[in-house]
């Protein structure tokens, strides 16, 4: 055995230990990343899953004309201003006749959501004959009550409810007058100060209109810019400058685009605040680099032989591009556009700058109605003090993530399905 071999052998044990350490460090790093992901998702789902259900309390409600303060249940004006809370309070008092003092009454009334009267109005509107009659109805519980029923033993003790309120609730629960139901209003209503009434539909619509504007602007512009840069632009310093700009814009912090929107679109052009149109334009500028870069990659992947073949048949450069290059590059471009859209859908900071952070109850009907978007809604709810908003926020995050996952899956699917291998 040579001297070298001997020396090599001596060093081996130490070197293999180093090798093992290095590998372990690598595995630990990946595990850390995956664990963080897992923790994030379980945390959100753990906090948010309760928001998909809410509690109702059964009451004998009498549609008493005097309490409601109306005489004609077919009159829309009267219906709108009727005192539905009054009949609900009557029902509560009847259920708990022992409650006498003013303070206790207030505590009792607060068991039912302030929004519980809206279904009564709708019932009366569709069945005017109900006026004066008594019905057994399920009324939406207040969010503190909802929290109380969702909590475990410890959570119930920590609840903000008073001992009397807890006793009433126990009595109701024991009589089977409390039920848990799917929270449909979460998906169908707009924002509200009351957690049990708040929903994401307004934000979803706002996001939809914002994304619509973004897609309509950024996709054609991005593709056109990519085609110009790949196929027509002369190789000179000006083109280089455009490229440097695009690459740099892709890395500019998103909040800067918000400042741009605020100063130029709202300040200089006098566009309205809080509307999806401006939000969409700002997000367009933000996603354009992504779309241009991926579209260029897709165009580059089209082999030159295709261009030469078309050129050889006498097609003009523009015809080559429009008839051959663009259709072949389309799957790649679409994939890039979807990824860019997914980025834009999750973006919050620039929209805060252009006022989409306002509290808006109405569901927007078009791109120039004041609106908020899903991520901003999440931000707003996360800032709200009520405990119930934590669950709502997490639920809204789950909805947002579901949209993002759907979009990314679509992108992956498109890439796998349509991408051609040359």
């Amino acid at each position: 055995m040579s001297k070298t071999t001997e020396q090599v052998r001596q060093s081996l044990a130490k070197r293999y230990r180093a090798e093992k350490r290095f590998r372990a460090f690598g595995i630990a790093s990946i595990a850390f990343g995956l664990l963080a992901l897992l923790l994030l998702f379980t945390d959100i789902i753990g906090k948010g899953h309760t928001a998909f259900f809410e509690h109702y309390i059964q009451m004998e409600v009498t549609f008493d004309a005097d309490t409601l303060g109306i005489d004609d249940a077919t009159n829309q004006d009267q219906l709108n201003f009727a005192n539905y809370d009054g009949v609900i309070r009557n029902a509560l008092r009847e259920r708990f006749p022992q409650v006498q003092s003013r303070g206790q009454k207030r505590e009792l009334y607060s068991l039912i959501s302030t929004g519980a009267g809206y279904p009564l109005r709708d019932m009366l509107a569709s069945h005017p004959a109900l006026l004066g009659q008594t019905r057994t109805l399920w009324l939406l519980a207040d969010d503190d009550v909802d929290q109380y029923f969702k909590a475990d033993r410890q959570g119930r003790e920590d609840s903000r409810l008073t001992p009397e309120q807890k006793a009433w609730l126990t009595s109701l629960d024991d009589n089977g007058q409390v039920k848990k139901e799917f929270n449909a209003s979460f998906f169908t209503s707009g924002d509200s100060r009351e957690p049990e009434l708040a929903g994401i539909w307004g934000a979803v619509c706002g996001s939809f209109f914002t994304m619509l504007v973004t897609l309509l602007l950024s996709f054609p512009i991005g593709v056109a810019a990519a085609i110009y840069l790949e196929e027509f632009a002369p190789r000179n310093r000006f083109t280089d400058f455009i490229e440097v700009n695009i690459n740099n814009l892709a890395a500019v912090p998103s909040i800067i685009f918000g400042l741009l929107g605020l100063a130029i679109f709202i300040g200089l052009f006098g566009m309205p605040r809080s509307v999806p149109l401006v939000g969409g334009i700002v997000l367009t500028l933000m996603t354009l680099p992504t779309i241009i870069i991926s579209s260029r990659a897709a165009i580059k992947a089209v082999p030159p032989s295709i261009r030469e073949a078309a050129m050889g048949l006498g097609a003009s450069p523009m015809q080559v591009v429009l008839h051959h290059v663009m259709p072949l590059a389309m799957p790649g471009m679409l994939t890039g556009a979807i990824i860019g859209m997914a980025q834009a859908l999750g973006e919050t900071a620039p929209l805060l700058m252009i006022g989409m952070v306002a509290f808006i109850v109405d569901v927007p009907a078009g791109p120039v109605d004041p609106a908020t978007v899903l991520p901003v809604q999440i931000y707003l709810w996360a800032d709200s003090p009520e405990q119930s908003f934590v669950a709502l926020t997490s639920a809204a995050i789950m909805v947002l993530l579901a949209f993002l996952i759907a979009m990314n899956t679509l992108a992956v699917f498109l890439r796998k399905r349509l991408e051609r291998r040359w």
Partner: protein
Amino acid sequence: MDTGNLLLLVVVMVAVAYYMGRQRSMALARPLGGIRHLHSLPFYYAMRAALWCAIPALVVLGLWLVFDDSFIRTLVIGGLPADQLPASESARGLLLNQINNVASGALPVDSVSPAVAAAAERLGHLRQISTMALAVAVIVVGMLGAAWGWLKISPQLRARQQVERVLQVLFMLCALIAILTTVGILMSVLFESIRFFGKISPVDFLFGLKWSPQIALRADQVASEGFFGAIPLFVGTLLISAIALIVAVPVGLMSAIYLAEYAHPKLRAFAKPALEVLAGVPTVVYGFFAALTVAPFIRNLGESMGLDVASESALAAGLVMGVMIIPFVSSLADDVITAVPQSLRDGSLGLGATQSETIKKVIIPAALPGIMGGILLAASRAIGETMIVVMAAGLSANLTVNPLEAVTTVTVQIVTLLTGDQEFDSAKTLAAFALGLMLFLTTLALNVLALRIVKKYREEYE
């Protein structure tokens, strides 16, 4: 007629122009013996007519919409009696707001001076005229253009070349938007910053140690502007970014190395996209996670060890931001590591190096420029990140490097200063733009440097 309807009308006009152009070119071709005797296909003649209709109409529409507001404003202000003319820029803005509110009905007419009421009426009137005039102008220009395009159609007309030329220019304009955006960003932050530096000296801003813009209680108060020393913000930003990088760089780099050099293809096929999911999670979600889960956890942990941890500690925001940045580091590192030629690996392994020795002594040194570029990009990401810090970092500007205390950052202050009630001219509002300028310049420098390094690195191995 509102803008939406007007746009619809333009679309109809363009369609008609297209149809007419097509008909005319076909009609011209028939006596000649078919369309092959035309210079271009009928499609191009039709497109040419359509473009002649669309472009002038849309240009008029766009310019009008951009400039009509300021034009009308000038007219309204100019129409005020001489003694009512606003003295300063800010007074002018206030007055305009008032007039606007009266005109839109948000402010009752009897609550303002007769001059303002008259101006409001004038404003409404001018707006009506403007809308009408716009509709007329757009229709006339569009029709004239279409007619011109239609009349010029002849078998010799080089319609295809012209249409393609126009398309190419359009494509180029689209590419120019990238430059326009950069210019727009620069203008928007620069002008407001210059106004800010007119009120607060740049030296005080850049080197001042105290930041408290919220102090202004009354406008006439002495020193009502508060303090605008940005050092605490810069330090806070750097502190949180540094924590983020301390988490993200080793984890991201080692993950990339393990996945590129060691991992079984199956693990790689699973772990790589799974890590990239981290990059796809919206930042607002990380903010929520940081504020509601990580920060309380760290505070409780610190308490159990007898440490005093702020509920909005820099550590929580930095940690979560680090997790967010992991995929940026790892995917960029993966790119550069896989770009290192296999021959270098073979050379090292062939000399009897172990795999980790090859990685540590050959691959990483060879990939170092690329990795550095990736880290710089990640740093730029961390500095510009907004939502995590807005939700999980503090508002009070403490000058500290203790990660357990609450610090605030540049982006947090921009958001705080610009959301909620604001007067457009106060130093408070303008300060946000000055901070924006700093942020833009810093990230710009980092990005340009990083992109240059990465590009150079790529060229080396191509």
